[in-house]
């Protein structure tokens, strides 16, 4: 188990580094950062002064190593546009995105697991078909379209919920639905498949024979075993949420990490862009690693190195 863990950890680290290196170099392909900072109508002398000041005239690899050295110590530099240390900005926005991701996953699980259980209990019935359709529609809908539809109905027509900001818990309802709905099909199908397998096993037959109530059989005995792969799937999907949150946070004007990512790309705010990509990829890598390790821990057959 230890060797497996160490090897996985090493791979995770390499992935994070590669992502940061690729992002760093892609910035230079899309235009001159000095002109981006100088803005429209700047004179050549101003642009050159900016180039020198920020060190853009140094070779790209030197700039990257310089940045990486700082990042490892927690110094991500200063944001060009927000005029604050990037670390401060990121860690003040991270909780909002985490809250959004957590509520989205919670919504997805609350919707998908019962649906999956009920579909497994009545396989190939109308209910099963309905649940599957609901799930597939969720995966096919673009999240921004769904978000705008929610805004239109719940925000504008029925005035049930506030549309923008992150002041109260009501602000998170629509974003959580829009973001979480995408994950529902995968979780639902996995739950359904897992439950179907478990429900036909011997110990469940024994439980039924012993006269236990349906509820107890389903949830206390069957679901507990069927849910294991779902937990690791949820961990990975949580990582996807962080990426999908860019669109949702922008539409609902939630000041989280996703919105910061979009903003920093538009503003060519290089230090922030690089730091956000690094933080998000590290989180995603950690989640995937955790899911891997959890699975390996629960099922020793998966501990192949």
């Amino acid at each position: 188990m230890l060797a497996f863990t160490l090897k996985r950890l090493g791979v995770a680290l390499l992935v994070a580094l590669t992502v940061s290196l690729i992002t760093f170099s892609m910035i230079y392909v899309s235009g001159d950062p000095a002109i981006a900072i100088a803005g429209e109508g700047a004179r050549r002398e101003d642009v050159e002064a900016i180039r020198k000041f920020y060190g853009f005239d140094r070779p790209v690899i030197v700039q990257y190593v310089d940045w990486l050295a700082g990042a490892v110590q927690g110094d991500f530099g200063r944001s060009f546009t927000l005029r604050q240390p990037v670390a401060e900005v990121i860690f003040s926005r991270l909780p909002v995105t985490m809250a959004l991701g957590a509520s989205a996953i919670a919504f997805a699980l609350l919707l998908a697991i019962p649906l999956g259980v009920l579909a497994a209990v009545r396989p190939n019935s109308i209910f099963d078909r309905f649940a599957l359709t609901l799930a597939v529609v969720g995966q096919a809908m673009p999240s921004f379209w769904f978000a705008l539809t929610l805004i239109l109905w719940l925000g504008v027509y029925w005035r049930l919920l506030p549309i923008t900001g992150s002041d109260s818990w009501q602000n998170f309802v629509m974003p959580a639905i829009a973001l979480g709905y995408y994950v529902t099909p995968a979780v639902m199908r996995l739950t359904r498949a897992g439950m179907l397998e478990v429900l036909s096993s011997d110990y469940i037959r024994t439980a039924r024979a012993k006269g236990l109530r349906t509820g107890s059989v389903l949830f206390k005995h069957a679901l507990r075993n069927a849910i294991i792969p779902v937990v690791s799937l949820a961990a990975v999907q949580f990582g996807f949420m962080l990426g999908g949150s860019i669109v949702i946070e922008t539409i609902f004007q939630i000041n989280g990490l996703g919105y910061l990512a979009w903003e920093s790309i538009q503003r060519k705010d290089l230090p922030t862009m690089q730091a956000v990509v690094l933080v998000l990829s590290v989180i995603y890598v950690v989640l995937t690693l955790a899911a891997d390790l959890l699975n390996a821990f629960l099922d020793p057959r998966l501990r192949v190195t």
Partner: protein
Amino acid sequence: MIRSLSRAWLATAALLAAVGLLTAAPALAGKKDDTLVWATDRDNPIADPYYLNTRELLVIGHHVWDTLVIIDPKTAEIRPLLATKWTWVDATTLEFELRKDVKFHSGKPMDADDVVYTLNHVSNKDNAIANFALLAWIKSAEKIDANHVRLLMRNPFPAALAYLAGIAFIMEKGHYDNAPVKPDGKKDFGAVKPNGTGPYKITEVKPGDSISMVRNPDYFKDGFKGSPAISRIKFRTIKDGNTRVAELMTGAVDWLWDVPKDQAERIKANPAVVVENAKTLRVSYLAFDVTGASGQKFFTDKRVRQAVAHAIDREAIIKNLVGPASVVAPSPCHPDQFACSSDVPKYAYDPAKAKALLKEAGYPDGFEFDLYAYREREYTEAVIGDLVKVGLKPKLNYMQYTAFVENVHKGKTPVAHGTWGSNSIPDVSAMTSHFFLHGPDDLTRDAEVKRLIDEADANTDPAKRKAVWHKALTRIAEEAFWVPLFTYAKYYAFSKDLVFTPTSDEVPQFFAAKWK
């Protein structure tokens, strides 16, 4: 069991809906809260107009600060604001007499020391204000006495008053002296707490979120800006266009601009909202690579350039894509800018003539070339559509602004479809000079045009200046160095409870707005 589960679901959903309904946070905006909330998609993390070069900060600048003089957008005349009188002592010297009843938000009365401090600070290259290029003509300012100031220029600059009116906000003496120091040792001037003389004061700046202002009860009376009627103004950043409109519908936001035409047409029907189309100082144009530096030498030939001018149906583009307040621009400047003459040779929409000119120039079957653009893609595509009709084969290189500018500066663009807002300064030198004085954005490099512009701007006599500028603009039109296309118009959408008039300088006068 399943029934009870479904019931539990329904109950929870109903409960949430009820709670949501009862406790949904009320939007603090609109007439009942006497708060005007306006939103754009841009983030404005600091509130100093000298250190953040965005349109929103320019607007906030005019509400929280005052300039020496101001331009009346209806008549384009220079009017007094902090200064009551001014005199041109000679071509490089202006003297101002100042008002005596002005106070900063900090309480300190304004006098010559503040004006001298501000003008000397902004014209000093080391202080690196964001718009330095626009005030670089200032050499220094001197105090004559407590209410008189002398302004010295590096060279004759007849448009000085227009530039001062647009962006030279007066700060209190010593305002930047105690600026916090950044980790690299330089002072962070933009971080100083805002303090101005204007009709509104800033109460809160939330980077990435909002800037809040409250009416200044001690604002001087009988100034050009009058006495503001609305108590509070809040600027909010809302990135997504649809979300902004949704917030306008629910009343959480009271005022928007830059609404796309199709959306504006749709929300016109909503009784809660007023939609207006007003012109701006931004001009759309095609600039040709006249020198041939890009390697595609087609546009060194005047006939080819004139053919392109005849090929484009500018009226149709305006009518169908831009908006009713847009007009065709015959010169490389905005018709509302001082000395921008529209009385120049014009190129009527005539595709047959365009084809004839191309044939004469040796291209009966047209030719392929690269066209660069960065802004509204639909406008560029309309232009391309027209060019294709006369046999030309433009290849579109659509990119972000920074990449576009880089290509222009490197001389790589045979045809560049650009726009220019002139920082809302209503003087021809804010646009044409930028593009025809052999700077990095000048793709023409014509010696005669430069000579005429230099001669024009050495005159402080407005009539003489206009006459020489007319000659320069005529030459540019005759040679078709550019095909100026049209002026931009913006759609404004705001609450029906608001009395508001858009102005062409793109600086909304919220200080003049009021509730019905």
